[in-house]
């Protein structure tokens, strides 16, 4: 068992994470919209792509000396102001809640990282009035947060705990295929929403996978 204390994450680390997330979205946005076409309105990929690709551009001009919390807040505000739709409000809320959890800390310790992810998941629950099993992004994010928390609590390294979290998010995403949507546009299709994975859970799994790849 590893015992070295890993240093906390700084703003540059977070920027690498968000950049990696943005690239995954830009690369795979058509597949995300295709998933949304199954029982939704076929725009999840283009919504996310619009917000994340413009974020990648503007982010390059932000002050690299800022604090992690400020960075997360600015990401959240940019997403809220550019993505639109449900995912704009939800991903925006996630980052704003992460920013709130991190506060004005100069490095994000493992504890703060867990708090940030927990804040993100609660933000989705508050804003979306959603529960586990409703076939939404929460079904990928929730298990990931739980895996991260437990992994770190059990002494795993941050990178190992994040890898476990990413695997949990992927598993959560896959599990949504069998669920019936109770929130968002897919819920109108009721039983016919069963059959493919929820697009928001797929993008949320990318967010966690990007964290595992970069943090």
């Amino acid at each position, binding site marked *: 068992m590893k015992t070295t204390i890993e240093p906390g994450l700084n703003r540059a680390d977070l920027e690498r994470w968000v950049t990696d997330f943005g690239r995954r979205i830009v690369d795979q946005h058509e597949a995300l919209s295709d998933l949304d076409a199954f029982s939704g309105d076929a*725009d999840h990929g283009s919504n996310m792509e619009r917000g994340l690709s413009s974020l990648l551009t503007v982010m390059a001009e932000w002050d690299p000396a800022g604090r992690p919390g400020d960075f997360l807040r600015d990401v959240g505000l940019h997403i809220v102001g550019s993505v639109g739709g449900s995912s704009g409000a939800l991903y925006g809320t996630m980052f704003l809640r992460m920013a709130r959890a991190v506060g004005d800390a100069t490095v994000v310790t493992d504890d703060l990282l867990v708090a940030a992810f927990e804040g993100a998941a609660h933000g989705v629950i508050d804003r979306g009035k959603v529960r586990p099993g409703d076939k939404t992004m929460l079904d990928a994010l929730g298990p990931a947060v739980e895996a991260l928390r437990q992994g770190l609590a059990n002494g795993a390294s941050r990178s190992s705990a994040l890898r476990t979290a990413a695997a949990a998010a992927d598993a959560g995403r896959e599990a949504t295929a069998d669920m019936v949507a109770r929130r968002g546009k897919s819920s109108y299709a009721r039983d016919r929403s069963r059959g493919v994975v929820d697009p928001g859970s797929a993008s949320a799994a990318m967010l966690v996978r990007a964290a595992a790849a970069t943090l």
Partner: protein
Amino acid sequence: MKKFINSPATVVDDYLHGLSSAHGAILEWDPENRVLQRRDPPSTPKVGLVGGGGSGCEPTHTGFVGHGMLDAAVPGQIFTSPVPSQIVAATRRAENGKGVLHVIKNFTGEVMNFGMAEEILYFEHLDLAQVIVNDDVSIADDGETAGRRGLGATVLVEKVAGAAAEEGMELHALTSLAESVVARSGTFGVGLSSCTSPARGKPVYDLAESEMDLGIGISGEPGRGAVPLLPARGIAALMVDEVLSDLSPATGAKVLMLVNGMGATPHQELYLMAGELEAAARAQGVAVERQLVGSFVTSLDQAGVAVTFLELTDELTRLWDAPVETAALRWGR
């Protein structure tokens, strides 16, 4: 995909540019804040009305800005709700001393983004209220879904509340009036095709040549289920049944009927359906006192028709008949 567009990314902006150039006397597009607003502020203080939602449902809400309807509209990207900053900017413009009413169609994205805007506006000194339009009878309100969508009643709420606001009604009463229009309305839609959103470039879903889709919404998502296509009379009977069994109007009720095309349904078919729908309603003891036939709450280039019934009161009829001057609805001036 065959459309009259420059590029998928600029469709919404190019549309708004064209709309404001065609109707420059009544409205103005602010591309920076992404707010479409009345050109001339009302001559006396009145409650401001702001409507907004994803684009692709034109003329909702943009075509309803003007005297007797909205003070401002906030269009999102296609099928994507507007963002909070737009809503905040529009609300400030519409405020004119008597508060502002937000007309929100009950879609997750719209409700969440208007909700975020309200949290921001909470700190400003203006009275703010909202009406959530959810007239779609194809969705049972059993908590297992995002709830009934806001469809054709949006036009009716904006027209009636717009007229009452123009007469000076206060925000509180106006909100109740708008809510009563929602409560007295029901809508059911039938699609003959899916639609093609510019960004995606292909139809959202497939519908067989012999099928129609029941219980469609307004953003391309599939409806409640596909069934074999019927003659117009059979479709009308089914639609009227769906709405009236949910709405349960009083016997002999007087109603307003909106026969709404989804974007690609021609005038001829819309009026043909209006005739069938009126007859089907009459057969159920309901008297159609007012009709509005046209494409008002659309879903891009979808072929389809939705019917909305609003159970009238004398007051509602009077407000419906009041003058209106917008890009898409105009009478009395």
